[in-house]
C-alpha cells in the first residue's frame, strides 16, 4: 500500500513537473526532475546538521525569519514555530526572530525588503508572478541542489524555484484547490456532492433556499478567486491548461474560447448567488469563519486549510465533519474529474546578503529534514507537503487528510501554477483586482479579458 501510494504520488507529481512552467516564462524545460538526478548519480550527501557543534563558533547568532504565517498556534504557523523552537533548543547560541504577516501584507513587505536588505530566511512562492522579478534581482541565495537528494522532494516540485538550472528555494506544500464542505449539514439536508457543474448550480440553489450561504469565497483578496477560476479552467481545458495560459500571457491575448468559457462560468456562479453576500470585499479570516461557524455550507480554498480539522477554536461538531471534493466537471469540457488544480507554491529561501547566510541555510535545511516540516505538518493536519510523506502515515490522519491524499493519488493530471501567478506581478495585481469586477457583474467578460491582457504587455 505504501509503495503504491508513493508511486502514484510520484506519477502525479511528474505530470506536475511537466506542467509547472508557465510556458513563455519558464526558462528551462522541466524534464530534469530532481529524482532523475538522484537515480543517475547516487552520492553521499553532506547534510550540514551532522556537523559537530565543536566546528561552530561560539558567537551568538541571530536569525530573522520573515513568514507569511501569522497564526502561530494552528496549522502551518504552528509547525513552523515548533521547528524554530526545536532548533533553538538544539542550538542555544542561535536565536530566531520571527516577523509574520498575512499573505497580502507579506507580499507587499517582501517587495519592500527586496529593495534593500532582506531578513535571513523568508517565505517565497515558486511561481513566476512572485519569483521571476525576485530572482532577476538576485536577492536570494543559491542553494546546492545536491544537498537535497535524500530529502525526498516530490519530483518536479523544485522546478518553480529554479532559474537557469540553479536552485533558490524549497517548496513547502503541494497545494490542491478544494471545496471544503460540511458533511453533517449536507446529510441533514439530503444534499449530495455534485459531480457536474449543473449539479453544483442546482445544489447551490437548494442551499440558498435553506437560508444558508452555499460557498464561502474570499473575494476580497482576489487570489483565491483566481485560483477558483484556475480550477474551473482546468475542467474546461484539461491538460491544455498550462499551454493556453502561457500562450495568453506571452501574447497578452486572453480571448481564447476556453478562458472565456471558464470566466463565464465563474460569472454565472457569482450571479446565481453561490458566494456569500459581500464576498468581493471580505478577507480570508472572515470568509473561513463563515464556514467554520456553520453559516456557509462550503468553502473554497487550498488544501493547506485542512488543518481546520484540528483547530481548537472551531466547534467540534463542525471541525469533525469537514470533508472535501474537487471542482465538478464541465459539460463538454476536456478536464475529467481527476484532472485537478494543484501546484507547489509556497516555500522558503535564504537572503543572498544575509550576514549569517551559512547559519540561515543550515536552519533551512533543518526545517526540510524529512522528519520536520513534512512530518509535523502531517501530524498537525496540514495538507500535503512537497516531500514524500508516506513514512509518516500514522493511521490517525483526519478524514480530511485521507481524502486529500486520495484525491492526489487518483489525479490523472495536475495543473501547475494558478493563472494569477503565471504572469509578471503587474499582471497578478491586475487580474486579482479585475476578477472582483467581472464576478460582481460591473465589468463584462470581454472587458475583463482585455484588461488582464493589457497588463501582460
Amino acid at each position: 500500500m505504501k509503495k503504491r501510494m508513493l508511486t502514484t504520488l510520484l506519477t502525479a507529481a511528474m505530470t506536475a513537473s511537466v506542467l509547472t512552467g508557465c510556458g513563455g516564462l519558464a526558462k528551462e524545460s522541466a524534464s530534469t526532475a530532481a529524482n532523475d538526478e538522484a537515480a543517475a548519480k547516487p552520492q553521499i550527501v553532506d547534510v550540514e546538521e551532522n556537523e559537530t557543534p565543536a566546528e561552530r563558533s561560539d558567537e551568538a547568532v541571530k536569525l530573522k525569519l520573515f513568514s507569511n504565517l501569522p497564526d502561530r498556534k494552528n496549522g502551518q504557523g504552528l509547525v513552523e514555530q515548533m521547528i524554530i523552537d526545536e532548533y533553538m533548543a538544539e542550538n542555544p547560541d542561535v536565536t530566531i526572530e520571527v516577523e509574520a504577516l498575512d499573505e497580502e501584507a507579506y507580499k507587499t513587505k517582501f517587495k519592500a525588503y527586496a529593495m534593500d536588505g532582506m531578513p535571513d530566511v523568508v517565505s517565497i512562492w515558486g511561481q513566476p508572478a512572485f519569483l521571476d522579478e525576485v530572482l532577476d534581482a538576485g536577492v536570494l541565495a543559491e542553494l546546492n541542489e545536491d544537498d537535497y537528494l535524500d530529502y525526498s522532494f516530490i519530483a518536479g516540485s523544485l522546478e518553480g524555484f529554479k532559474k537557469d538550472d540553479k536552485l533558490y528555494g524549497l517548496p513547502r506544500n503541494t497545494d490542491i484547490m478544494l471545496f471544503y464542505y460540511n458533511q453533517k449539514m449536507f446529510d441533514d439536508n439530503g444534499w449530495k456532492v455534485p459531480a457536474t457543474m449543473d449539479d453544483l448550480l442546482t445544489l447551490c440553489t437548494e442551499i440558498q433556499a435553506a437560508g444558508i450561504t452555499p460557498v464561502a469565497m474570499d473575494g476580497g483578496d482576489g487570489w483565491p478567486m483566481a485560483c477558483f477560476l484556475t480550477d474551473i479552467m482546468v475542467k474546461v481545458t484539461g491538460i491544455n491548461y498550462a499551454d493556453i495560459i502561457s500562450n495568453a500571457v506571452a501574447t497578452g491575448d486572453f480571448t481564447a474560447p476556453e478562458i472565456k468559457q471558464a470566466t463565464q462560468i465563474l460569472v454565472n456562479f457569482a450571479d446565481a448567488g453561490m458566494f456569500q453576500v459581500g464576498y468581493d470585499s471580505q478577507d480570508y479570516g472572515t470568509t473561513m469563519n463563515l464556514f467554520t461557524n456553520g453559516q456557509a455550507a462550503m468553502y473554497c480554498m487550498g488544501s493547506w486549510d485542512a488543518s481546520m480539522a484540528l483547530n481548537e477554536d472551531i466547534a467540534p461538531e463542525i471541525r469533525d465533519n469537514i470533508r472535501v471534493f474537487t471542482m465538478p466537471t464541465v459539460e463538454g469540457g476536456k478536464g475529467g474529474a481527476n484532472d485537478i488544480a494543484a501546484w507547489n507554491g509556497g516555500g522558503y529561501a535564504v537572503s543572498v546578503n544575509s550576514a549569517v547566510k551559512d547559519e540561515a541555510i543550515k536552519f533551512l535545511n533543518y526545517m526540510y529534514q524529512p522528519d520536520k516540516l513534512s512530518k509535523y505538518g502531517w501530524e498537525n493536519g496540514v495538507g500535503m507537503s512537497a516531500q514524500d510523506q508516506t513514512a509518516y502515515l500514522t493511521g490517525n490522519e483526519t478524514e480530511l487528510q485521507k481524502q486529500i491524499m486520495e484525491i492526489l493519488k487518483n489525479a490523472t493530471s495536475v495543473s501547475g501554477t494558478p493563472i494569477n501567478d503565471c504572469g509578471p506581478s503587474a499582471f497578478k495585481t491586475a487580474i486579482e483586482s479585475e476578477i472582483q469586477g467581472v464576478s460582481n457583474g460591473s465589468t463584462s467578460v470581454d472587458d475583463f479579458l482585455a484588461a488582464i491582457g493589457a497588463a501582460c504587455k
Partner: protein
Amino acid sequence: MKKLYSNKPVIFSLVLPGLLVFLFAVMAPIGLSVYYGFTDYSGMGEVRLIGFDNYVDLFHDNAFGRSLKNSLLLAVGFICIQHPLAILVAAVLDKLQGKAEGIFRCIYFIPNVISVAVIAYLWKFIYNPDFGLLNNIAKAFGHPGKINWLSQQNAIWAVLIVLIWHGFGWGMLIYYTGIKNIDPVLYEAASIDGANWWTTFFGITLPLMKPVIQINVTMAVISALKQMETVYLLTNGGPNNSTQFAANYLYQQAFKAFKYGYGNAIGVVFIIICVLVTVALNSIFKEKRESAA
C-alpha cells in the same frame, strides 16, 4: 538690540534643526521621487531612465483617474454632509448650558482619538453582511438584512460614512469654537428684534462663521485628497479599484505590482495636485475675503 537680533550665526543655529528635518524628511524624498518617477525601476535590480513614459501611462490609467474622482466625491461628501451637520449640531449645542454641554462635546469627539486601525477594523465588522451591526439594525426594522454595504457600488459611500463618523467631532468642535467666539451682543440684539432660532442661525451665525467655514472646507478637501489609512485597512481600494485613492494606489503599485518607478511618478503627480489645490483654495478664499472687506 538690533545687532543682537540680526546675529547671523545665532539665527542660523535656531533655524538649522527645522531646516535639516525639512530637507531630510520632506525635500530629499521628493527629490528622490522625481528621479525614480523617470525610471522603470521595479524596486530591485537595474534602474533605467525612461523619460516621461510613466507620466504618459499615468494619464491613461483608469485606476488613478478613479482615485482622483473618489477624492473629489469624498470632498463633496464632507462639505455637503459632514459640515452642515457639524455646524447645525454646534449651533444647537451652543444653546445648551451647563454640564450637559461639556458631556456632549466630549462624547462627540471620542471617535477622533481612536486609532484608524481600530476604526477601520471595527467598521469592517459593522458592515459585515452576516453579523454586522448595520444589517442587524436593518433587520430590527423588518428588512431581511444581508445588504452588501461594501459592494462595488456601495463601497465608496461606506468609506465616506466611516470618515464622516470618525471626523465629525473635530469639525463640530471647530465650528463650536467659532460660534462661541461670536459676540453675544449680536444675539441679544436679534432676540430683541424678535428673530427666532432659524433666522438668527442664517442671519448671524452662518455669515460670521465664514472664515471658519473656509478653513474647514480647505481642510476637508485636503484630507479627502490625502486619504489612505482608512481605505487601506477597510477595502484596500477594492472591489476592483472602486475605493482607490492616490496614496493607496501608489503604495500598491510600488510594493505589490513591483512598479516602484511608476509608484513614484504617481507620488510626484499626487504632491503637485495637493499643492495646487491648497494654493488655489487659499487664493480663492483670500480674494473673496478681500473683496468682501
